[in-house]
């Protein structure tokens, strides 16, 4: 049972750390917050 509990805990903790770090990264990536469509070709 030790193997099951240890590996389950390790996976859950690792996944949640990745998710939290990822969400923080998303907070800094503000370019993706807007829904305005960019049509650059018309400017070129």
């Amino acid at each position, binding site marked *: *049972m*030790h*193997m*099951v509990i*240890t*590996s*389950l805990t*390790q*996976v*859950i903790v*690792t*996944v*949640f750390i*990745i*998710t939290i*770090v*990822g*969400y923080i*990264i*998303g907070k800094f*990536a*503000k*370019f*993706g*917050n*807007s*829904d*305005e*469509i*960019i*049509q*650059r*070709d018309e400017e*070129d």
Partner: protein
Amino acid sequence: MNWGILIAVIIYEIFSIFIVTALVSRKHKKNAAGSDFAFASGGLSSPLVGITLGLTLLGAAHNWGTCQNSATMGVMGAWMGIACSVMMVVITQICAPWIRRTGSKTISEFMGKIFGKNTRIALACVQAALGIAMACMEIEVIGVTLSALTGWDYMLCSLIGGIFAMLYVVLAGMNEVAWLNVINAVVMWASLIVVLISLARYLPGGWDGIEATLTANPDTEWFTNLFGSKTFLIAFALPNAIGASVFHAFSQAGYQAVATAKDNRAVKKSLWFASPINGCFCIIPALIGVAAFAIPQFREAGTMMMSPMMIVTLLPKPVIALLAAGFLGVNLSSFAVMALAPATIISHDVYTIKEPHASEKKLTKLTRLWIVIIGIVSIIICKFQPQPVIIVNWIFGFGAPVFVMVLIGLWWKRSEKAAIITLIVSWIVLCIWSTFGLQNYLGLTNFNGVYLSIICSAVIGIITTVVCPGKKGLFAGLKKKA
């Protein structure tokens, strides 16, 4: 033969499909737009988007594929899921909002907006082919599940599973698949937890017995540790995280669910659902696989069939039925998007070259037809495929040049000539390395094709972009928050 279990599982799947389809159709009766089928009219909330994204990119490689992996790497097979958590971050927090800001419905359309028509066609052809390969893999494991339950020939089970899978996606659309995914997510997680607890009772010696068997042998001692082997961390976990991220960041399968979100904020919030659902999944199949591997009676059945055999032999019938329903639901959901993605590419990117003003109704009809064709092709060739995880890694390698060129084209410079050269040369190099066996010939089995593909495409992409004339990057010079 487990007729009772098989009938119960099929009734559950059919019942869930028809009930959800009827309820969703009633709700959206007034909306007759064809785009509803593939993109759910772009109005889904973050939980639905997250669950759909988490489940559609969770399939063959996560369940039976991870059980199979456990025969060579023990519980480290769970890194397949953890790697996908990294991928979910890249998709939801960075790349998908970029794609949505170009107003593209497909990845090929997105590439076309950055580089031009020829890049769009090249990518559409390759992504459609890769999508078919992934759909094929889902049919393979649906066949394994049915074969374990019935004892029938694997090909017959693939045929029945394939027909069922085609009906699943042809009858439903993206909206229905999204709601079916919610039901499947609950059933799948419930079944896995029940199996894990049941195994503690029915395994010879319980989980402690399995652990004692593995640790007694120096060759398998590290099988019980998630961080047991540095070699597998470098050769399996890391390339999976990088490969999954670079491939699905700009793949139709990764984008299809995100394209249905109501706005970019919903996309970003969907990470809280997609990442845990997908990322935590693999540890339970890894443990099931480890248990099957530790018992000689099941190990002799081979890596693919050892886990299904163990479950069918040891567990009570209601638990088997629950697990089969959960696994089939997951694989049907994955097949739905894996088939829908190439079918959407073919109808929206390839067919529109011939008929640019085709109506949405006509494109939806064509998408449905292509889903049937993809299903038939998948059934025919699924027996000839290697292990799911090997296929997945090979497919991931094709995403690296797309990822590199999208970054260059968005933020630096757009040159169609550079994009075409980089994509084609990198894909050829990957095929020579993996498909034609150069990797094995040189004895570099730990140097994953994903690494080679990234290095190759970065070098060629940068050099060709410098040399070839082009326009300013699509997003270059824009304010961070438009």
